[in-house]
């Protein structure tokens, strides 16, 4: 401390100090001061400096946050006062500052101290530094009625919550807007000031009670800083120069914390009454004037920080009355320029609402599952997952809704629906994609509230109240799943908004298997995105960074959650736990990521997610040897990495944030570079082998991305806004915050370098070839080859394989039944066939390469160069197709299809040997749909109605009707594409029924030509309907003889015939019909035998039996004639016909 005091008050040129800090060379003057410890002190100097400043200001800061209107608590019954929060370097424990030692008496009277609010998680609570300033004077007439809150003119908004990585904040502090409305008249004159100071020095503490009593309620007081009262200006100037140097060179561990501290100094409010009571140690920063002066000077000098923060923060700075007073040049001139140079781009389009994960055939279809059941189960899992998400989305904001009651069962059952690695992996992937989708939709926290509504106003006037209100609405205490991690104090596990669903899903699922797969999925997702090449524009880049952060957060959650504890771990337990975990492996190799990113210039992409991951780490983890190296690397990066300004700001703010975490082992920060360098290993040997674009120098980071990644930055604005708010009450000032959005085009930045490797000569040639061509050439060739191969594979999968399998299934039917294992040999054959066809498909696809590449490659390429590209592309394509075939076209691919087919065949083969070539729906020639024909459903209806009318109402059906129906049926069945097999079958049955019934009931309407025409139609339409081929499996014996449609002589048909009014004609027609059916091969002689036997099992009137006998005799006669006619000879003609002759004779007997 003495050292710094010496430095500040001495006359050593600060320039020498800067050089020393920067590069370590020590000037003679400095050497004397530092003695021999230059190198030791060098790295801890910034921390010493900070400690010094804090010490110097501690006594006054203790007094801070006294409400200037404290004397009027009586008039504001809802008062909930605020504790001062001063950022403490270590942050590890509540700083003594929290305890308002300065005026305990007062405190007792006017404050409800809210000790350690439960909800530490929200940073909105953070800055409630109610530094209600200085002795400040507000005229009586400016009284503001507390009820006018809504009309508060301040348009600035402060964040609700600070996003994902909340820092441990001091107790959340209530800030009652009503208080601010109170007024106070203030005695501000030099004399009074002096008197006050004198009083303070004399330490005559006037009892507050008497203060209370004696003061008029209209007064409020705080010390208003005045540049004229600043003492030790030159020392303060030197201190400020030192400090700002350390800040802008990132020598302090956490720029964020220090700026936060400076802002707190800036808005320091101390009541004269307090000053009176307290003895202030003599120090540099022992008055409000000095503090504000120091703060303003320092803030002004760290311009490099301000160009990366949100406009609204700058606006706050610009309108801050104290800054206006202390550095008017900066606020009036430079800041406005800076503000106008910063553009805020809202990357998230307001219409982006697609929040579901699209089904992609490449990753989600049956091919990606090991079995049908796995595929089917995942279909359910997918839907249930989406359902759970929907239910949560709709209900999570309803008070009293409890996710664990509502969803636990569902989530648990869906996660473990099939305990199979494939399903877990798919579910984990779905989970990750949905999470990323949702994460991309989240806007930067600050943008959430609309500024004009009452809520927006409340937000600017009393953010904490708004947060509490909102919490009450969206997050009633009982709505949180009972099993939520730790206590609410456990800020590290804080997830906000929609991410809560995913956190709670993991907790409620409580499935170790799922967690493991999710970890894998996240790790691979991080891996993929970290090496992503698609960082061409800001939107894309921001999306990548945010996706990485979210994945890292959940990975951290999964990994560190088991080690979380709400308690402070006693040392022996701490050591015990760390011994247990000494050789624990991290799920992801952070060191190699950091090293890699450092060498490849991609730190800006990697550091944000690494920090997010580490902020979730438990205290024990950070002290494990594995982490030691990670942290050293990060510190090295923090000190040494060279990035474009905005990129540098982003990663350093994030790293500083990490370093200021309470868990962070501070001693590491004081390590000299050399020690860290050892950790970095062979840094100098870095080679860049790949062509990933280097991002660190690109201009992809804007302030909105910075704020999205570091939501805690809003606390700066929060502090300023609160100050401005109470201030604005009196001044009526209004900060205008209109924003212009100007799209910024991205810069291309890629410098691929290719390193040769020891490979075959041809490969080297190829490598060199690409090396000397523009990088786009290689990318194009690889891309085209990739796409082309993918298309060939698609073709193989969707065209070639199904076609060949179909053929094979057909072959299976004719396969000699004696052959052994037809499936096995067919599969082999199929593999060969598919490979051949795939190869030829690839060849023909390659033919298109030339024209494609010509169109895509730079058009000034020499023709030979282009030819080489074509040949490389075709080689690549073929290679990829071949790889795929090797991997996927195996016997097992076809086995299932063929075995199913074989099983089908076996069923039907069990009855009769079938002949190939049955036309099925798929074999039908391509039909052009004719929508003018009658719809099948209409036809069914018409037939049904006709039949009903003939049977029931004896309605007349003319021959013309039948002819029309025939032609309609024909056109419907042959000229439409919407006839399903079942419908076709139904039409077959109904047309036959109709003809039969008309033959029976209205024989006069039917001519023999009509019958012939119908039979011809059936023959043509239903050629396969040979009873032998019907697909019905074997019936229990005796249950059914034949299932054929063409049943002419069954009991039912005879019953109909018995009702005929002109039986002779009816029987004639029926006999003709039967004969026609037999002639055309639709009904076989054997079928008639079977039908006839069934008939004679029942009793019938003799007359009917007589006619039946006649009919049967006709059949027998026809059959005999056919047998004797060699032209008509068929296979079945040799069948025995004795049975039917006998039946016919038997039935004709009168005495039956």
């Amino acid at each position, binding site marked *: 401390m003495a050292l710094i005091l010496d430095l500040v008050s001495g006359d050593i040129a600060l320039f020498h100090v800067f050089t020393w800090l920067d590069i370590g060379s020590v000037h003679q003057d400095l050497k004397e001061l530092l003695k021999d410890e230059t190198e030791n002190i060098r790295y801890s100097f910034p921390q010493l400096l900070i400690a010094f400043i804090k010490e110097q200001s501690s006594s006054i800061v203790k007094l801070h946050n006294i409400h200037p209107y404290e004397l009027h608590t009586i008039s504001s019954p809802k008062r909930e006062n605020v504790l001062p929060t001063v950022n403490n370097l270590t942050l590890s424990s509540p700083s003594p500052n929290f305890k308002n030692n300065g005026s305990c008496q007062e405190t007792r009277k006017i404050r409800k101290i809210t000790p350690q609010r439960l909800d530490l998680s929200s940073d909105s609570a953070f800055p409630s530094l109610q530094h209600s300033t200085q002795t400040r004077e507000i005229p009586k007439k400016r009284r503001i009625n507390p009820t006018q809150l809504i009309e508060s003119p301040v348009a600035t908004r402060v964040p609700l919550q600070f996003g994902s990585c909340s820092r441990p904040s001091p107790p959340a502090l209530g800030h009652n807007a009503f208080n601010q409305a109170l007024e106070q008249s203030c005695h501000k004159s030099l004399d009074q000031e002096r008197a006050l100071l004198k009083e303070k020095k004399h330490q005559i503490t006037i009892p507050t009670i008497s203060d209370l009593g004696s003061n008029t309620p209209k007064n409020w007081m705080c010390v208003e800083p005045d540049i004229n009262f600043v003492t030790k200006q030159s020392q303060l100037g030197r201190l400020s120069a030192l400090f700002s140097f350390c800040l802008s060179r990132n020598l302090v561990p956490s720029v964020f914390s220090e700026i936060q501290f400076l802002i707190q100094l800036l808005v320091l409010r101390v009541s004269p009454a307090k000053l009176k009571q307290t003895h202030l140690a003599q120090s540099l920063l022992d008055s409000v004037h000095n503090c504000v002066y120091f703060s303003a000077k320092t803030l002004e000098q760290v311009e490099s920080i301000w160009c990366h923060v949100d406009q609204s923060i700058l606006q706050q700075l610009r309108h801050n009355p104290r800054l206006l007073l202390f550095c008017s040049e900066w606020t009036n001139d430079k800041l406005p320029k800076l503000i106008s140079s910063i553009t805020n781009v809202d990357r998230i389009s307001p219409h982006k609402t697609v929040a579901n994960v699209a089904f992609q055939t490449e990753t989600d279809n049956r091919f990606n599952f090991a079995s049908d059941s796995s595929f089917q189960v995942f279909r359910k899992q997918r839907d249930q997952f989406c359902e759970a998400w929907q239910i949560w989305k709709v209900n999570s904001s309803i008070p009293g809704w409890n996710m664990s009651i509502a969803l636990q069962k569902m989530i648990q059952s869906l996660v473990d629906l099939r305990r199979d690695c494939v399903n877990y992996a798919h579910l984990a992937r779905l989970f990750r994609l949905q999470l990323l989708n949702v994460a991309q939709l989240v806007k930067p926290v600050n943008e959430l509230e609309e500024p004009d509504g009452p809520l927006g106003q409340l937000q600017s006037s009393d953010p904490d109240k708004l947060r509490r209100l909102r919490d009450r609405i969206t997050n009633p205490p009982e709505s949180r799943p009972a099993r939520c991690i730790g206590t609410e104090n456990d800020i590290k596990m804080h997830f906000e908004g929609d991410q809560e669903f995913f956190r709670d899903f993991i907790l409620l699922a409580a499935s170790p298997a799922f967690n493991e797969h999710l970890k894998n999925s996240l790790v691979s997702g991080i891996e993929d995105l970290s090496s992503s090449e698609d960082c061409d524009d800001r939107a894309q880049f921001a999306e990548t960074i945010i996706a990485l952060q979210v994945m890292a957060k959940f990975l951290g959650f999964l990994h560190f959650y088991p080690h979380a504890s709400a308690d402070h771990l006693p040392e022996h337990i701490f050591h015990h736990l760390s011994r247990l975990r000494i050789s624990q492996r991290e799920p992801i190799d952070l060191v190699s990521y950091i090293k890699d990113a450092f060498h490849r210039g991609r730190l800006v992409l990697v550091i944000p997610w690494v920090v997010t991951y580490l902020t979730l780490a438990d205290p024990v983890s950070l002290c494990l040897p594995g982490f030691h190296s990670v942290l050293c690397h990060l510190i090295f990066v923090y000190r040494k990495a060279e990035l474009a300004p905005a990129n540098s700001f982003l990663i350093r703010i994030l790293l500083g944030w990490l370093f200021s975490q309470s868990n962070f082992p501070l001693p590491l920060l004081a390590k000299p570079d050399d020690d860290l360098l050892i950790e970095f290993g062979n840094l100098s040997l870095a080679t860049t082998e790949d062509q990933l674009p280097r991002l660190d120098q690109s201009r992809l980071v804007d302030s909105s991305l910075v704020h999205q990644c570091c939501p805690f930055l809003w606390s700066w604005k929060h502090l300023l806004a609160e100050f401005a708010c109470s201030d604005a009450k009196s001044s009526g000032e209004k900060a205008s915050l209109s924003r212009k959005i100007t799209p910024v085009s991205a810069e291309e930045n890629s410098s691929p370098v290719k390193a040769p490797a020891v490979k075959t000569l041809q490969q080297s040639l190829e490598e060199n070839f690409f090396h000397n061509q523009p990088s786009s050439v290689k990318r194009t060739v690889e891309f085209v080859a990739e796409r082309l191969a993918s298309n060939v594979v698609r073709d193989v999968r969707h065209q070639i394989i199904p076609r060949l399998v179909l053929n094979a299934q057909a072959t299976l039917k004719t396969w000699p039944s004696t052959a052994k294992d037809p499936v096995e040999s067919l599969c082999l054959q199929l593999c060969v066939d598919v490979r051949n066809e795939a190869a030829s498909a690839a060849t023909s696809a390659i033919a298109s390469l030339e024209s494609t590449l010509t169109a895509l490659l730079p058009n000034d390429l020499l023709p030979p160069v282009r030819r080489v590209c074509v040949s490389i592309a075709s080689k690549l394509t073929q290679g990829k197709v071949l790889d795929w075939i090797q991997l996927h076209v195996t016997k097992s691919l076809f086995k299932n299809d063929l075995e199913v087919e074989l099983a089908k065949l076996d069923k039907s083969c069990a009855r009769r040997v079938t002949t190939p070539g049955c036309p099925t729906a798929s074999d039908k020639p391509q039909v052009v749909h004719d929508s003018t024909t009658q719809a099948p459903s209409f036809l069914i209806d018409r037939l049904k109605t006709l039949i009903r009318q003939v049977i029931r109402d004896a309605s007349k059906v003319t021959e013309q009707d039948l002819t029309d129906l025939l032609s309609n049926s024909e056109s419907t069945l042959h000229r439409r594409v919407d*006839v399903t097999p079942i419908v076709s079958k139904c039409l077959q049955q109904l047309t036959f029924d109709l003809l039969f019934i008309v033959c029976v009931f209205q024989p006069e309407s039917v001519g023999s030509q009509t019958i012939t025409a119908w039979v011809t139609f059936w023959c043509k339409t239903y050629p396969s309907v040979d009873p032998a081929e019907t697909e019905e499996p074997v019936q229990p014996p005796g249950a059914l003889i034949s299932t054929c449609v063409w049943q002419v002589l069954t009991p039912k048909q005879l019953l109909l015939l018995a009702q005929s009014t002109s039986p002779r004609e009816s029987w004639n027609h029926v006999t003709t019909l039967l004969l026609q059916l037999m002639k055309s091969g639709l009904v076989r002689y054997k079928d008639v035998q079977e039908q006839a036997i069934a008939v004679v099992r029942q009793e019938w009137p003799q007359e009917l039996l007589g006619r039946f006998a006649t009919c049967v005799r006709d059949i027998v006669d026809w059959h005999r004639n056919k047998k004797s006619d060699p032209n008509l000879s068929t296979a079945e003609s040799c069948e025995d016909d004795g049975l039917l002759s006998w039946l016919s004779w038997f039935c004709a007997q009168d005495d039956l």
Partner: protein
Amino acid sequence: MARVLNQTTYNSLLDSLYKLPFRNRIQSLQKLFPELSVDTLKCVVAQECQKRMKGSHGRLTTSETVEVMYKKFTNSILMNEEPGILLRLSDEVGLTPALLARSIIERHYQRDDKSKPAKLLVSTLMKNTALIDDRDLAFETYLCLLEDEEYGPIAEATKQSKGYEYEIYLRMELENCKVSFLHEDHLRMRGYDKTPDIKLEIPVAIDGQVINWIESKALFGDEEVHRGYLKDQLYSYWNRFGPGLVIYWFGYVEDLEKIHQNRIILIRDTLPTNMVLMDQHL
């Protein structure tokens, strides 16, 4: 003729429906609601009937009640009653004719241990009544099938056909509108796990809303039907492909879209003609 009903009209339609006797309800309803399309009425009646059967089928077809009905039937045959025995019995017990016939057939073909015969046998007999060995049962069953609009092989075929006809019709219409799409068969071939009737390969907008898929339903969309489809199909499509459209060709009850909350699935009774296609000019 209106096909989209508001809740009030729909309720009064159901009220009148409940009061009418089972047969020929459509003609009566047509007189009561002349402004409604006949197809819509038929559909509502059919769905009401199915709902009723769902509720009472189990109760009406216990082995005891079937035994009683079978006895009645055989008795009537012995008594030489007029044909239409089963139809009259159907009116009496409240089962639709085809369902009653099926129960009687099951009883008639019961196995020696009184268990039910194979389902396949029964359905084959229902499809081709000429195969039933008992001539009276065969004829009576046939009469039942001709009368039943909801159940039995003929009604099933009609329903299936209607569904498919409208699907094909929708495809034709979309082709006419130059909308490019994949239909169910394509999707199945490509291994999709859930297959809407139409998946638009290039989305279109209807009334300001982008849709990515279309499902065709040749029936009337009441709340129960719609909820069923949402659960089994429509939400699954939404989960995979985003917002879409369901067409209830025979109409629907207004305001069903409210059920979906933030999941956008449009409901229409025909393919809207004001589709906005993606600009494909160069």
